[in-house]
């Protein structure tokens, strides 16, 4: 099927969906609503998509923590982190000794294609979704923290204390390991991660989110044009997060 006809079909589907929603609202007796109509479920994720991040360290200012605070507020993390607080994203300052060149970059779960955290998990709680996002299923996490040890990026945290007032989209609790989810709750609804949104909103434009499998996406075009690096590429984990200017 050609691209144009697929788009036409998608448009027709959207129209039919809207029409069905309207008809449902009209035809049903008062007080009875079809919940399926009111909020449609998001589609299942597929391996056609590989979500990735491109971080331009030349645009990432030293001392700027916009992405970190956006992550903390989006996911209900500790706004004033203590040494034992969960940390999903952190700023790292690096300096090349010989030249004195400095760079600042955010480091979070690198969403590896070959994630060591998944390899070591004894319960299958640490897993990789079809679209490449590496997550912890808290329902089966027993808090053993093998994944924390296995991750070369120090991207996983453990929740030590009971929590209250979690975000409805981000359930978190004591006794589980957690890490950057690439804001799955937003991505599944067609959005972008909170860190990327905050970085773009503040005008830094240092973070780019997109589908690495789609040759027409902005991130694919950029990684094709400019040399980018994966952190610890020698480990051959094939992270979905890439860095420019390192």
């Amino acid at each position, binding site marked *: 099927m050609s691209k144009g006809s697929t788009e036409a079909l998608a448009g027709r589907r959207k129209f039919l969906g809207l029409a069905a929603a309207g008809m449902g609202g009209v035809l049903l007796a008062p007080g009875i*609503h079809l919940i399926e109509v009111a909020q449609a479920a*998001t*589609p299942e994720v597929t391996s056609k998509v590989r979500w990735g991040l491109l971080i331009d360290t030349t645009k990432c200012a030293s001392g700027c923590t916009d992405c970190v605070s956006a992550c903390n507020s989006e996911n209900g993390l500790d706004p004033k982190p203590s040494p034992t607080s969960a940390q999903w994203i952190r700023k790292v300052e690096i300096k090349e000794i010989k030249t004195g060149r400095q760079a600042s970059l955010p480091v979070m779960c690198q969403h590896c294609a070959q994630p060591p955290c998944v390899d070591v998990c004894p319960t299958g709680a640490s897993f990789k*979704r079809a679209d490449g996002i590496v*997550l912890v299923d808290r329902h089966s996490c027993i808090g053993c923290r093998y994944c924390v040890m296995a991750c070369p990026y120090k991207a996983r945290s453990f929740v030590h204390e009971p929590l209250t007032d979690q975000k409805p989209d981000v359930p978190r*609790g004591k006794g589980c390991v957690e890490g950057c989810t690439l804001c799955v709750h937003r991505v599944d609804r067609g959005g972008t991660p909170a860190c990327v949104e905050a970085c773009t909103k503040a005008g830094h434009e240092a973070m780019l989110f997109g589908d690495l499998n789609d040759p027409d996406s902005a991130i694919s075009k950029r990684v094709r044009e400019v040399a980018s690096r994966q952190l610890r590429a020698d480990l051959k984990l094939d992270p979905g997060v890439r860095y420019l200017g390192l």
Partner: protein
Amino acid sequence: MHCGLGCQLLRHPLMVAVTLVLLIASGAAMAEPAGRTPKPAIEPARAGTQCVAPPEVMRRDHPAMLKHQRDVTVHRGVRQARDSLQGCVGCHASAATGSVAQAKTDFCSSCHGYAAVSIDCFECHASRPAQRTAQAEATKP
């Protein structure tokens, strides 16, 4: 006459016993609704909403439904599904506390307290529909 009197004498303790038994039985029957364990008072859901299944089905099968949905959501990314926990919380949050499991009278905790089954959902999940209210406030003119 003799027989009648004798019979009456004989019947009298029997009658007493029968009435006693009846009284105790009726007393027990009357006391049952307001027994030692009060029946849970189920708070009605948000007005104008319809549950995903009839009450008999929900009472028996809601754990299985939620358990199935959680795997579909976490592993396959299907959000805002029919059987989502957020859906339950959205309609059943108490008008007074705004939660399904904060006070003992809230929707989830009232039944679970009666059946002595602990709920672990809300150790991690939000028991109040914060997003809905935030969205409603945002869309208000």
